């Protein structure tokens, strides 16, 4: 159980009278194991541990009265720094502002579209959602129902060309004088060339204000691969990490942040419309570190 692991690592480090190279190395191995167990990507974990070791071997720690305490602080601070220290909200400057959601199958895009719409509506913005997933059975119907719950209109054409649907949806938003348009797209594999081309063409054509990579908070080592691929294909502006109401440690947060350099803007905290929290790096750091 990772919580106990970090607890015991920190307990044993705090108990150390002085910090030596040997016990920094032993602790480093334990920290690496704990990070892997938390689903932090193995090469991200490796470099994290290396950075922490270097900082711990610095004179500040060795001269400190409570070296163990200092060491723990180094680990915590380094994790928060990795996750992105400041909280970044949505940047919606055009009228209508366009938010494009992209990600792997089942990550939580359609549900997150509703949550974003709900949040924006509650802050006084008028929102239109566009059903651009023409592939998944009843995907359009799902967004229509989510729209009813959020009391936000949904533009849909049933089937058709997702690019054309997005363009017409945006035109509709313009005529209705909506503040924000949210484009819900089909889940896709980064290995699927055709589907990646499709989402690129949507992005190129409509030039979104926000392109959010929606990722499952329970994702393992693959987070680096998929995030990297979406980052290379699209000018991402942020990430939504979903299903964080489970007990997954959420190491994917570090991996995704490291490989894209983009801020995690929101985390999903339930299946409900209000289950969207603003990302708090300190809370997620504590969660990953147990």
């Amino acid at each position, binding site marked *: 159980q990772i919580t106990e692991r970090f607890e015991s690592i920190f307990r044993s480090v705090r108990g150390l009278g002085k910090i030596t190279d040997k016990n920094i190395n032993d602790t480093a191995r334990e920290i690496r194991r704990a990070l892997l167990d938390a689903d932090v990507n193995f090469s991200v974990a490796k470099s994290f541990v290396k950075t922490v070791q270097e900082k711990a071997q610095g004179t500040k720690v060795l001269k400190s009265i409570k070296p163990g305490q200092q060491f723990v602080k180094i680990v915590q601070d380094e994790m928060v720094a990795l996750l992105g220290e400041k909280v970044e909200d949505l940047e919606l400057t055009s009228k209508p502002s366009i938010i494009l959601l992209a990600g792997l*199958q*089942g990550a939580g895009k359609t549900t997150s579209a509703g949550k974003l719409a709900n949040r924006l509506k509650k802050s006084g913005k008028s929102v239109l959602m566009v059903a651009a997933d023409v592939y998944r059975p*009843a995907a359009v119907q799902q967004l229509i129902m989510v729209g009813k719950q959020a009391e936000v209109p949904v533009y849909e054409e049933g089937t058709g060309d997702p690019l054309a649907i997005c363009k017409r949806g945006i035109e509709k938003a313009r005529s209705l004088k909506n503040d924000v348009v949210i484009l819900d797209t089909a889940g896709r594999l980064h290995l699927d060339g055709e589907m990646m081309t499709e989402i690129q063409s949507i992005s190129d054509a409509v030039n979104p204000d926000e392109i959010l990579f929606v990722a*499952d908070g329970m994702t393992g080592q*693959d987070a680096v691969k998929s995030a990297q691929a979406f980052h290379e294909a699209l000018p991402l502006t942020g990430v939504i990490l979903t299903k964080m109401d489970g*007990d997954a440690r959420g190491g994917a947060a570090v991996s995704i942040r490291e490989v894209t350099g983009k801020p995690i803007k929101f985390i999903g905290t339930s299946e409900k419309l209000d289950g969207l929290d603003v990302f708090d790096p300190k809370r997620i750091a504590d969660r990953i570190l147990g």
Partner: protein
Amino acid sequence: KLAGKRVTPESLETLEEQLLSADLGYITVESILDVVERHSKSDFIQKVNEHLVNLLPGKFNPTPFENPTILLVVGVNGTGKTTTAAKLAHLYKKMGQTVTLIAADTYRAAAVDQLKIWGNRVGCNLVCNEKTAEPTSVLFDGLESARANKSDVVIVDTAGRLHTYSNLMAELAKMYRVVENRFPEFTLRSLIVMDASLGQNSIIQAKEFGKHVKLDGAILTKLDGTARGGIVFPLFQELGIPVEFIGIGEDLYDLEHFDPNAYVDGLLG
């Protein structure tokens, strides 16, 4: 890049990274490295391959069910349960069996619509009730209907649920009990659907779900992506749950039997 190498610290490190990045988890990886380090002198990769295959369940070979069987499809949100339920219905229908699909996800938006579309594509019976929020009642009606039309296979699609919600786990346990108590003539099998791209939490999912329903097997989905689903190892070694099928796409026929040799080849490939 490991092929033909002898055991060297570099080849061990490459193997370690390859296995870790496949989500085997550090405990499983460390024990594999331990064995490899102690035993392999030459023909390194062949020895690793054999060792990995031995840690996995045998090749799964689905055959028509001789006794009417219920397949309860469970798992956390978004793993591919509904799509997999449809693929299973298609598989058993192709074998000549009478199949009934039960749309027991009475919670999520358009969940029943989604399974209805699949049911039409498969061409099998489908039981649903869009007026109830009670999955147990749909399950009950579905099983009565399956009994009446002498279905060989009944596939029950359930709502995605995180194991951290005790009320949702209790709901699942209740569904399981209803089948055991009211429909004992059916063979009841629960299959947990796991997304290959998820990490170590999958083991916790299987442990927790397993406390509420007896898990007979797992189905690993989205293996057509880059994720390798190394969770199959601890699932079998630690929890005794064999992966029976793998999902390799979004269509009805994108379901394959689990084959440990093909799987390990893909892992070391």
